[in-house]
Structure formats: structure tokens, C-alpha cells
């Protein structure tokens, strides 16, 4: 799965290092394993490029990433229009399951985490798992930033 995720991420933001992207792919795989009903988990940049995904077909991941970017921006425009704060997440419910899309602010720019489930997922548990995954993603990207700064200090 890792090789697929990194493959899908071949055109990703160069500001995220490959080692970080591999770590993000592991975090997504953990979510898929631990939360019931999760069919796929995908991380995209705010402008809709795939960062990492548990989807094995990179075309599917890329399509989903673009749509995640659009939905996230539209949700932001809507809450702005209503005078609300930035939306934390978007929940789509249908007879087939849930789709949760969360904004994940990281130092290199906002990411969007999109998780698709089947009917067996429980919304409360799912939201909790997504939150915890988002926190792990933030930690991984912040760690990259911190180590990059440390190495630039040591070189100067």
C-alpha cells in the first residue's frame, strides 16, 4: 500500500519530504485498519493535489483530491458568508455510508483529509478517529518542519 500511496503522491507539494509523505501514508493506513467501515482515506493539498491515499488507483485518488479541495473551499466560502468561523469538517451522509472531509492545517499549507466509509461506520467513532488522524498528520508535518530548521541551523 505504501508504494501505491507514494506513487499517487508523485506530483505532490515538494515542500513535503518523501519521508514525511511515507509517514502520512502509514497514518492513513492505520486509520483504515482501526476505524470500522473505512473504505478509503486520502490527504490532499488545499488546491486539490493528492498527498497520500490508501486508494490503490492513483486516478481515483486524484479525482477525490480535486473534489475535496473544491468542497473544502466552498464550505469555507459558505461559513465566511454566514459570518461563521472556518469550518472544521464537512460530513456527507447517505444510505451507503459517510464521507468526512476535514481541514488539516500544517506548516506547509492546509491539507484536506477525506475519509469514505460504508454503512458499518459509526459517525461518532469515525469523527473521533478522523480528529486523531488529523492530529497525527499535523505532528508528522510539524516534525518535518522542526528537523528542517534544525539542520539549516547546523549548516549555517
Amino acid at each position, binding site marked *: 500500500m505504501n508504494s501505491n500511496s507514494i506513487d499517487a503522491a508523485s*506530483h*505532490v*507539494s*515538494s*515542500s513535503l519530504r518523501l519521508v514525511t509523505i511515507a509517514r502520512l501514508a502509514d497514518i492513513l493506513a492505520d486509520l483504515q485498519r482501526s476505524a470500522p467501515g473505512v473504505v478509503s482515506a486520502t490527504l490532499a*493539498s*488545499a*488546491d*486539490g*493535489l493528492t498527498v497520500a491515499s490508501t486508494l490503490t488507483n492513483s486516478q481515483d485518488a*486524484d*479525482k477525490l*483530491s*480535486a*473534489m475535496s*479541495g*473544491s*468542497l*473544502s*473551499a*466552498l464550505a*469555507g*466560502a459558505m461559513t465566511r*458568508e454566514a459570518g461563521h468561523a472556518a469550518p472544521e469538517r464537512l460530513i456527507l451522509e447517505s444510505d451507503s455510508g459517510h464521507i468526512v472531509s476535514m481541514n488539516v492545517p500544517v506548516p*506547509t*499549507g*492546509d491539507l484536506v483529509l477525506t475519509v469514505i466509509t460504508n454503512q458499518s461506520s459509526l459517525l461518532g467513532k469515525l469523527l473521533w478517529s478522523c480528529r486523531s488522524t488529523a492530529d497525527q498528520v499535523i505532528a508528522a508535518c510539524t516534525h518535518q518542519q522542526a528537523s528542517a530548521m534544525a539542520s539549516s541551523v547546523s549548516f549555517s
Partner: protein
Amino acid sequence: MVISSAVSAPNGAFDNVSRDLKVVFTGPMGAGKTTAIRAICEGEALSTDVPISAAEAKVGGKTMTTVGLDYGECHIEDQWVLKLFGTPGQERFRFMWDILGAGAFGLVVLADNSQPDPVGEVERYLSAFAKHVPVRRMVVGVGRLDSHATPSIDAYCDRLAALGLHVPVLEVDVRRSADVRLLLSVLVSMAEVEYEQQLH
């Protein structure tokens, strides 16, 4: 409370009441779709632009890109209310093209003459929207002709005509509302001709 004066008829046709025209702005990233709508919009335009990822090939000094839609409104010749929708430019947002293209009366394709093969790009967008908007209600606005003189407006017309796409092609500076207004006036005059024909 706001009640719509008329619900848009399907296929961009008009009914007898509505003078609302839905117009879609499209074209490659960096052509100035968001800028054009902001230039002409009465009141504040709605935008969904986000910072461009490091991986995306940047166009000029552009740092933000539309990923959802732009929206604004303007009046032309008092009687027409134009609802302006801007699309994202990148191919990966094609699904938004179909969402926004549905029910559109007219299409404005913006070109950036500083990009490689701008005519080919225009053709790509004209074809992508052909299932929503008839070719007779499409116009092309070419930007950055002052710094990039080729291809010329004539070259655009010739190449598009050879493909059966007989659409007006105008030079435009999307930052100038007068230029954008001219593009829309061309569309509106097409609307008026059709409107007259429907009455008779």
C-alpha cells in the same frame, strides 16, 4: 425575504419574465477568470481561491488559484442581470466545469497569450463546454497581447473557424472592467437577437 423573480429555464433558454443570464467564465489557470469577475462585479464577488501548491507549475507571479467557483453579478444595459460564474482552470477540476456549465446561457473563454499554444487551450475549453452552451453564445477574450503579440486575433479566428468554431475573439485586459464589460456586451447582443427571434 428574497423571492427569485424567475427560476432559470433549462438549457439556458429564456422565458418571458427572466432577464437573468447565467454566464460562465472559463479558461486556463492564470488567464484571469477571478480577476475579470472581480473587475466587473457589483458588490463583493465570492471566491474560493487557495494558495497554489509548490508542485503546481506556477503561471507568472500567481500565488492563489480557484478550486471551487467564483460568483458575481452585474447589470448590462439596465435590463439584463448577468450571473457570472468562474470555473477553476485546471483539468482536475473538470467536474466543476460540468456543474457550472449546466443551464448556462453564455460562455466566456479567457486566453493568456503568454502561455504555450493558447489557441489550442481555447479550443479545449470551447469543446468541453459545447454540451452545455451552443457555439453561437461563446466569446473568447485574449489577454497579454501587448507583451505577446502572437498568435494574433486573426490567427485565433482562423484556427477556430477551421474547426467550425465561429466565435467572436476580442483582446481583453481582465483588470479593466470596461474590457470585461465589452465581452459581456457581445454575449448580451447575441441574447437580444435570439430574444427578438423568439418574440416573432
